[in-house]
């Protein structure tokens, strides 16, 4: 079926610090792609590059064959209608109720009559277990509930591609199981393409058809879950098993510990 997203040799900096040094990867169409990697390795950055909220300094980000960075303003907005993103923080609109938040993309981009909007929103809220919370304000939700409400909002338009940034964070085991099933079902029934960024290795491995492991400003592993399990790279193995010792540093780069504590000048 080909690839919906192709990233070719991308370099990206935040100020002076480089985040990516030559990242290339593909997101196959109609499949679930899991993205794993240590905190701060640039997983959220990857999603923002695909949505063209950030621009690569070198290299190409292709969505459906189009270079996102080269699109004009209105073409970019047209292309964004085909994708949707669940933000790590949820990003619900604080001045609207949960129901209105979920209805927002429908009201904005479709001309559906009110009763159909009501039905769709209720169905989406039901699927994340929040039909009873439609009238609540986002500030009245717990962190996990807010994440699920945001999830309902990001799937309401049934776009071609959904990017989930940490959909399972802060969920109890029951909602977690439900969300895993939901993402899997959405993909299977609607044939859409999903990118799931998560630290929950077991859950991601269980639903992904394709996996990407990022670390040290590069892609260190890419392939099916089976291929990754058999991957010889220590980096990948450390991440999949969660071993504290290994090539992935737990610490953000710093001067030597003893030198720092003894107050030595850098």
């Amino acid at each position, binding site marked *: 079926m080909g690839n919906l997203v192709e990233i070719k040799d991308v370099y990206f900096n935040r100020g002076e610090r480089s985040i990516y040094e030559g990242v290339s990867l593909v997101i196959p169409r109609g499949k679930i792609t899991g993205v794993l990697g240590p905190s701060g390795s640039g997983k959220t950055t990857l999603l923002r590059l695909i949505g063209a909220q950030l621009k690569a300094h070198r290299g190409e980000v292709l969505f459906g064959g189009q270079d996102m960075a080269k699109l004009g303003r209105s073409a970019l*907005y047209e292309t*964004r209608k085909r994708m949707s993103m669940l933000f790590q923080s949820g990003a619900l609109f604080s001045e609207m109720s949960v129901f209105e938040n979920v209805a927002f993309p429908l009201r*904005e981009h479709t001309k559906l009559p009110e009763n159909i909007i009501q039905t769709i929103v209720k169905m989406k809220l039901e699927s994340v277990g929040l039909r009873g919370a439609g009238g609540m304000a986002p500030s009245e939700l717990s962190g996990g509930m807010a994440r699920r409400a945001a999830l309902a909002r990001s799937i309401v338009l049934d776009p071609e591609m959904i990017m989930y940034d940490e959909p399972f964070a802060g969920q109890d085991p029951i909602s977690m199981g439900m969300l895993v099933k939901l993402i899997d079902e959405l993909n299977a029934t609607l044939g859409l393409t999903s990118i799931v960024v998560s630290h929950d290795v077991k859950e991601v491995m269980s639903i992904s058809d394709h996996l990407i492991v990022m670390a040290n400003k590069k892609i260190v592993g890419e392939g099916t879950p089976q291929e990754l399990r058999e991957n010889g790279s220590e980096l990948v193995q450390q991440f999949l098993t969660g071993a504290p010792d290994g090539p992935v540093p737990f610490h953000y780069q710093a001067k030597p510990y003893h030198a720092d504590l003894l107050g030595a000048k850098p």
Partner: protein
Amino acid sequence: MSMFHLLGRNILNNIQGVGQATIMLAQALIGKPQPRKMLPLLIRQLYVVGVQSMLIIIISGLFIGMVLGLQGYTILVDFGAEQALGPMVALSLLRELGPVVTALLFAGRAGSALTAEIGLMRATEQLSSLEMMAVDPLRRVIAPRFWAGVISMPLLALMFNAVGIYGGFMVGVEWLGVDDGAFWSVMQSSVHWQDDVMNGVIKSLVFAVVVTWIALFKGYTATPTSPGISAATTQTVVYSSLAVLGLDFVLTAIMFG
């Protein structure tokens, strides 16, 4: 770094800021009008920005009018000219105090709130989320707030003037005993529609554009952290107050000079 280096860098930053602010406003306002979508948003903002500022404007107007009545009377009575109290109160309010004080109060009440609200929307990724939903935050969030500010501030200034004149009347006529008929008739004959009322409204319109613009820009570009938003809010109040007072001099020189 040398002082000149710092100064030069500062000036360049400021010029760059003005450029960015202009681009932001142009992108927010230029485009196909969508009245069906924009009208409800505008009405909501008119309520938040305008109606909710009414109380502070009315109370301040009343007190300032009363003070003008009192001060004016004690000065004028020495010259036996207390009939001139009416025009004195009315002209001070219409030409100067109405537009200026309204703008300063507006910057403190509505401007700071706009900055904080938009800064927080940026910090909680609501603006990014709009962008990813293919909804332009400039047109959706900035434009209705801008128009609401521009529409409501001149109306607030007119309210301020009306209440202020009434305050001057209460003190001058009801309390200190200036002749009722003289107060109103001398006021009527010396206040001119074009020179005084309309010029005041124009001033107010200019202040409205500047204050709302600064507030929105500061919020939109705020560093998305608590200290960042708090600094942006302070800057909104400081910059808009300075801009209002400076522009007031320029406008006064043009209109009445």
